[in-house]
């Protein structure tokens, strides 16, 4: 099956490469990748950033940021959220039917664990435990202290008051360090755009939320697997569900404390490690980089003192030893 997909995509890709470039210079590419990696020119991230800039200028204050609770015990794997996300963010899409069918197909898109790509901001994965399927929606977790934000050396990310972590393509140089830093492997890159590639990621539907609408994926969910609201209320809701039904859930709200807390929170009936979630400390990633930077700067300043003294010493020593005005004068003089 894996091989079939590979062959199919390989043919696909070759066709594309041949038509686009007229060349057949392809090395050993990982052909098992889905077509969404070829997507370029997404406008959702830029649109949301521009809206954010406008709103920031008007200066509205919010008391609490928004959050989404994903109840994995309710998710039925229909993938309608994927369709809605693609639709709203103008990513390459397929008919809704194609998404809904994949659960019962064999082979199915669920056969391998997927991640987000340039033209795909959210994906639903399937995991099995004791022959029971578990469906897990994956998208940007919208960290309270985002690793991508602190990794970016041109400050192209922002954590909005609404909770969304937004990306500004007009500053991005394309170093892809945010992709290294993200503990959830969310930011994706438009590798197939040679001139103006950008990072793409879920915007928590900032443009909808700020107009009083639900995020596209939340709105379309018919299984009631997602709830949107203020983070404090959402957390309360999560614990209510756990306490009212302790045998249905494990006592862990994923995202409450992970890497300093996230705006997307998850409930599950089995341990999150079995569902592809990374096991993360409570410490926020930016704290690690900030403390490192602080240490380096302090050490650099401390080191400067003896070094400057050493330089003065060398200069005066050289002056005494006669002739040479500095330590760097060269042999050829003698």
């Amino acid at each position, binding site marked *: 099956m894996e091989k079939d997909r590979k062959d199919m995509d390989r043919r696909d890709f070759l066709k594309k490469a041949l038509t686009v470039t007229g060349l057949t210079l392809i*090395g050993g590419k990982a052909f098992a990748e889905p077509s969404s990696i070829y997507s370029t020119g997404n406008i959702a991230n830029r649109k949301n950033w521009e809206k954010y800039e406008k709103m920031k200028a008007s200066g509205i204050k919010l008391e609490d940021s928004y959050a989404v609770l994903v109840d994995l015990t309710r998710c039925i794997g229909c993938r309608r959220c994927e369709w809605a996300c693609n639709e709203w963010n103008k990513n390459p899409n397929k008919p809704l039917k194609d998404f809904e069918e994949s659960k019962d197909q064999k082979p199915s898109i669920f056969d391998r664990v997927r991640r987000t790509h340039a033209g795909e901001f959210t994906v639903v994965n399937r995991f099995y435990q004791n022959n029971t399927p578990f469906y897990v929606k994956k998208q940007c977790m919208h960290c309270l202290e985002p690793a991508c934000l602190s990794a970016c050396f*041109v400050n192209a990310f922002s954590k909005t008051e609404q909770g969304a972590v937004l990306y500004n393509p007009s500053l991005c140089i394309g*170093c892809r360090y945010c*992709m*290294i830093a993200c503990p959830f492997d969310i930011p994706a*890159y438009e590798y197939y755009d040679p001139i103006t590639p950008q990072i793409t990621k879920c915007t928590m539907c900032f443009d909808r939320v700020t107009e009083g609408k639900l995020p596209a994926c939340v709105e379309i969910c018919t299984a009631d697997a997602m709830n949107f609201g203020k983070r404090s209320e959402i957390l309360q809701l999560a614990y209510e569900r756990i306490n009212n039904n302790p045998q249905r859930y494990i006592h862990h709200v994923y995202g409450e404390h992970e890497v300093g807390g996230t705006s997307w929170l998850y409930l599950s009936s089995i341990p999150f490690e079995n569902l592809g979630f990374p096991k993360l400390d409570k410490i926020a990633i930016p704290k690690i*980089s900030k403390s490192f930077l602080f240490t*380096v700067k302090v050490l650099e300043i401390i080191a400067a003192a003896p*070094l400057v003294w050493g330089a003065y010493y060398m200069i005066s020593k050289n002056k005494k030893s006669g002739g040479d005005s500095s330590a760097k004068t060269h042999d050829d003089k003698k």
Partner: protein
Amino acid sequence: MREGSFLREKIFLGMSFKEYLKNHATIWNFIALIILALSFFSMAYRLLYGLGPATNLSDTYPWGLWISFDILVGIALAAPGLTVGTAVYLFGMKDYKHFAKPAILSSLLGYIFAVFALMFDLGRYYRVFYVIGWSWGLDSILFLIAWHFFLYIIICLIEWSPSLFEWLGKDRLKEFFSKLGIWATVFGVIIAGGHQSALGGLFLVAPTKVHPLWYSALLPLFFLISAIFAGISMVIIESTISHKVFKEKIMNFKENEFNLKTIGLAKALVAVLFVYLLLKILDLAHYDNWHYLVTLYGYIYLFEIIGFVFIPALILINSIKMGNARHVRIAAFLVAFGVILNRFNVSLIAYNWYIPFSEKYYPTWMEVSLSLGVVTLIVLFYRFIVRRMAILN
């Protein structure tokens, strides 16, 4: 071409263009030409069609060979200026003066070409100046590195410029920059120390992605120390090669003296290697990672540490005792290779350690050829400058 013209005297080493070409029609230059041709093709392909078609980079592996080799390895191996330059100009170790100028030149070329190679890895390379003067990500470790690279290249230029102005016959400028040299060296130590460690610091933000055997709060320190021993071993390697290739350039070359100094460098090298080993063991014990040693990653780790740190250290001790400069040189090669291996391990092999090896990144031929081309350019520029300026004598 006019006799005594600038082009003829300075660029073509006193030969006419025809003579110069004839003189350079060697097998090595031919190989270099082929590598460069392939490399330039890859560069053009990358610029025209993008990273996707040219490389094996993916959303899972956003950084590949160009970061691992050109930046992480390249910058570590370009540390001779930091080590020997400092020892000579700041600590007044005059015995090693002959090593200092080549060391500074190789640092300068190493950094310039590392940044040159980086331009092909950056998605929007034409915006690279944003980080210097447009938008500052002050919390980013990469921001510190970008600024330190920028400053360090300026520092290397200042340190190197006396040789340049001497070649151009501008004595007053040469004098001026000679005086600046010691200050450049002082700030060079700070700046180089800062960014060498920050290159390791880059991976501090990925605690779950880098294998526990390599991930450590000490990563920055490990990168700094290994850059120091990489720098010393590169000085040994470089001087060995240049003394073979440019014998005619070095006036009154004394084999014995050269060997003695090589052994002197070996003493410094072995000391740094043992500091590193000690910290590595401490690190293993602190994180209680012993049980990982019997896994596949453990073997890779041991291969790196024992094969390319511990064994070279033993060879060095023995050769210092026996006064065998040849063995020092072999050990220096091992150490430099170990640093290459270490950077590959941290950034590629131990990165995303939970995914199976079959899904790991490996470079395309274009990525490899571009990197090889950059190395070739460094060698050619080094040779070009050494033949013309007073670097070796």
